[in-house]
């Protein structure tokens, strides 16, 4: 009020007590030709838009456009997600199920249309607007209580301070107030920016941490805010339980049942024996063999089994914990005790036993009708598979080249293990196909021989056959001639051979040189610290 002269006039308003005088005044002001006018009332006054000449709003169109956008988003989102991008059969409904897509489309229509109505209203009204020159006079506070105000803007082309004041007074308005533009600083206080900035900065930290976590690896175990079912009470392998009388959490197969996929090939495939032929020659043995496959745990058949077990593939007794030694083979019992001499051990070709888990050798002639042909259809893939399995299970003892000098063997010799039996080399005449049929090799892998235990429970039958195929390939490779190769491969091999030989020669030369150098160094070192060097040489 003090320095009005310096301020720019914003407009003039007058106060009214009731609706009807206000409306009358509005009409009068409108008829006088003023357009930049406004009334301020504590509640919506019916008819004031006509009295002031306010045009209807476009809000319904905004809401309609938003609503249709919502419908479109709803429909396209669901069709894209459930019909095209991630089609998934549920309760027999088609991927494109319009009835099921209606509820969400409807909700999104309403949601977006409501946003349109609400935010559209705020935008058209220019809200939020926290600074308004009209609020400067405390008398105006009653505009939200019980008083009505009619305002004429100074920007109106017809505005003239005296004329407006007279018009408003004549129209019944009281307490005329001149409103001046608010010239207080529009700068926000500094502390606000500081607080705001630090809040934003601090709130970014967790986000950045999360973002960092997502792109980095960590070797420390997961930090469990929520357990996420990571600690399940389910039993692991070899754990005990109080649930079953025998205390084992791993359950054996139920006797007399066949698991899915357990016998989906003929029995020959699992035994390595031509079972029809065996039944013709020795029906009792064939029967026992089959029984043992089907009823691995049946104690009634324990003795009858024993004999069968002597040659039955361990594949049929996958989960049995019965130690092999417990089932004393009938045949082995009657047969003269096998010589445990290292000679026979080392040379399985001399004695030709039916493969027996106890390692007992039976000297009688092998009349078993072994399968002579690998039942798998041979291909590069099968042999490759055989190589993989061989390298995993067999190579540790037999060596990658099958010469019986795997890592275990080497270590056993280094530590001079007394009970160690040298694994067989697979490259010997007695193990070639003509004398040692594929079926027999299969059976040996399955049931073991001498110190070698059976791998039937660890390797799938088809993989055992693949190993057989690989062993045969390996055997052939060691005695092959260049002429055995296809014509187009021969040159390649020759080239390869030359390369390898050259490399070997180079390597040998380098080795020699190195050895000489090392010798020289060692000699020097020995001179300086003889005791130390001696200690190092021992391992």
């Amino acid at each position, binding site marked *: 009020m003090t320095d009005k002269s310096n301020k720019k006039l914003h407009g003039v308003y007058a106060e009214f*007590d*009731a*609706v*009807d005088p206000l409306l009358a005044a509005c009409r009068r002001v409108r008829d006088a030709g003023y357009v930049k006018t*406004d*009334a*301020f*009332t*504590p*509640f*919506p*006054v019916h008819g*004031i*838009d006509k009295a*002031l000449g*306010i045009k209807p*709003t476009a*809000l*319904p169109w905004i809401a309609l456009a938003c*609503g249709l956008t919502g419908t479109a988003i709803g429909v396209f*989102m669901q069709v894209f*997600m*459930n019909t095209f*991008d*991630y089609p*998934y059969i*549920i309760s027999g409904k088609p991927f494109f*199920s319009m009835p*099921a897509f209606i*509820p*969400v489309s*409807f*909700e*999104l229509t*309403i*949601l977006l*249309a*409501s*946003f349109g*109505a*609400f935010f559209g*209203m*705020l935008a*058209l*009204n220019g*809200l*939020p*607007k*926290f600074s*308004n020159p009209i*609020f400067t006079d405390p008398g105006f*506070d*009653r*505009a*939200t*209580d*019980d008083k009505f105000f009619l305002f004429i803007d100074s920007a109106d082309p017809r505005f003239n301070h005296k004329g407006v004041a007279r018009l408003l007074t004549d129209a019944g308005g009281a307490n005329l107030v001149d409103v001046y533009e608010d010239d207080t600083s529009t700068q926000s206080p500094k502390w606000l920016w500081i607080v705001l900035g630090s809040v934003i900065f601090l709130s970014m930290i967790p986000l950045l941490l999360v973002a960092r976590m997502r792109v980095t690896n960590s070797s420390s175990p997961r930090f469990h*805010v*929520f357990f996420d*079912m990571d600690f399940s009470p389910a039993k692991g392998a070899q754990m005990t339980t109080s649930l079953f009388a025998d205390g084992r959490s791993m359950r054996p197969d139920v006797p007399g049942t066949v698991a899915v996929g357990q016998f989906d090939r003929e029995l020959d495939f699992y035994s390595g024996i031509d079972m029809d032929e065996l039944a013709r020659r020795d029906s009792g043995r064939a029967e026992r063999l089959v029984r043992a496959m089907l009823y691995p745990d049946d104690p009634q058949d324990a003795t009858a089994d024993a004999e069968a077990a002597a040659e039955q593939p361990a594949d049929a007794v996958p989960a049995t914990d019965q130690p092999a030694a417990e089932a004393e083979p009938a045949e082995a019992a009657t047969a003269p005790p096998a010589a445990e001499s290292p000679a026979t051990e080392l040379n399985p070709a001399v004695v030709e036993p039916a493969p027996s888990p106890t390692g007992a050798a039976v000297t009688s002639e092998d009349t078993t009708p072994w399968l002579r042909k690998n039942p798998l259809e041979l291909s590069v893939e099968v042999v490759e598979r055989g190589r993989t399995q061989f390298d995993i299970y067999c190579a540790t003892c037999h060596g990658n080249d099958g010469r019986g000098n795997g890592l275990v063997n080497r270590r056993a010799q280094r530590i001079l293990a007394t009970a160690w039996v040298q694994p067989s080399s697979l490259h010997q005449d007695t193990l070639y196909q003509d004398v040692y049929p594929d079926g027999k090799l299969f059976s040996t892998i399955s049931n073991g021989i001498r110190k070698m235990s059976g791998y039937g429970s660890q390797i799938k039958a088809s993989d055992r056959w693949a190993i057989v195929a690989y062993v045969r390939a390996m055997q052939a490779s060691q005695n092959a001639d260049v002429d055995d190769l296809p014509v187009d491969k021969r040159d390649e091999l020759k080239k390869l051979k030359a390369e390898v030989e050259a490399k070997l020669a180079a390597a040998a030369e380098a080795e020699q040189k190195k050895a000489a150098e090392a010798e020289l160094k060692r000699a020097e070192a020995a001179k300086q610290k003889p005791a130390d060097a001696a200690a190092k040489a021992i391992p």
Partner: protein
Amino acid sequence: MSLAIPQGLDNTVERPGERAPLVLGETTTYHSVTEMVSQIAERPPSRAWVIGFLISATLASWFGICIAYLIYTGVGVWGNMNPVFWGWPIVNFVFWVGIGHAGTLISAVLYLFRQDWRTSINRAAEAMTIFAVVCAGTFPGIHVGRAWLAFWLAPYPSLNLWMWPQFRSPLLWDVFAVSTYGTVSLLFWYMGMIPDLATFRDRSTNKWRRMAYGILSLGWSGSSRHWMRYEKAYALLAALAAPLVLSVHTIVSFDFAVSQVPGWHTTIFPPYFVAGAIFSGFAMVLTLMVPARHIYSLEKLITVRHLENMCKIILATGTIVGLAYGTEFFIAWYGQVGEEKFAFVNRAFGPYWWAYWTMVTCNVISPQLFWFKANRTTPWRIVVISIFVNIGMWFERFVIVVTSLSRDYLPSAWGYFGPTWVDWSMLVGSFGLFFTLFLLFCRFMPLINMAEVKSTLAGQLHHHHGNH
């Protein structure tokens, strides 16, 4: 400025051709309306408020503790079992969503039908809606098992999951319906409050209070141009919210009715659920408003006529619910499908017969007392009957969820559901949360829509002038 309407006038009597006043009091003016409503938030809280707040806040905290316990331990702490996988959490969810319907119904549907009497009660009813939706939303959120992964329900492109939600499932419709409903109700409520918050702002003498209400009221000035767009937006929101109210409980009913569970799969469910929701919502409004009106001396604004009208709506919707119960029973017999017949006989005479008959007594019989005017116009009787209605509607959801699931198609899988202490705590705790929020609202926000009441008063004044 004042009205010549005697203080003790019975505005429940209306001579045809004349409209009974909705705002009473010889000395009631625009300013006195402002005073009556504003002083609730301006005076220090009464002892009753403090005690009520402490009790409900304690219960709400207990609710929070129970949720933490549930999340830490797992949903096994509930009584949910096989075959009743949806136990109390879903019963409570449907119950609270139903309560939430009266608010928007009063604001939107009654607005569209030009029922002026809504102006005194719509604000509190809308607030109640939002708080009820908050309570309702909690239950499915914690019922999903791993509550911290509830955001998987949202259709966002996830690099971990590489999949989208299943939009052909009614449970996902529910997510969208309830969240849309919560959002739109919030907008509606807030938008309605903007002018009244401006009144609070202009009355406040304290700088901080003025700033807080100033920010909330977005600089509302009461400009006629603003009012015009505001009213249009209000009408639009009302027109959008009215089908929304219907759709929300319809979709909740779809959760049940699209299944093949006997007793759930019946086509009357959508309108019957909606009627039931309105029924329970109005009962809750009355349960809250009758005491509030007494405590805050708002008898001139929330008159007996307002209460009576709400009682009539309860009577109407209660009767519709009763008709639906009857239709269901009849069709179960008429349809001659064995499982359906069994399901309904089992409801009434099976192991949960007590729940069924509690429901029928509270929902169908007790509202019939509102045929008598004395019951519609005596506040304490209204409260008692309303509470019975609320109990009945909780039991309705219990009957639907539990009896049908406990006796499914497979008799070998039948079972009997029993709640655990966590179930009980959560039911009571959700009431605590609801009342806490409501009491905070009464304390800090305009309990009655002043602008609309003044508008009604203006209409009365105008009419008054016209008659002379």
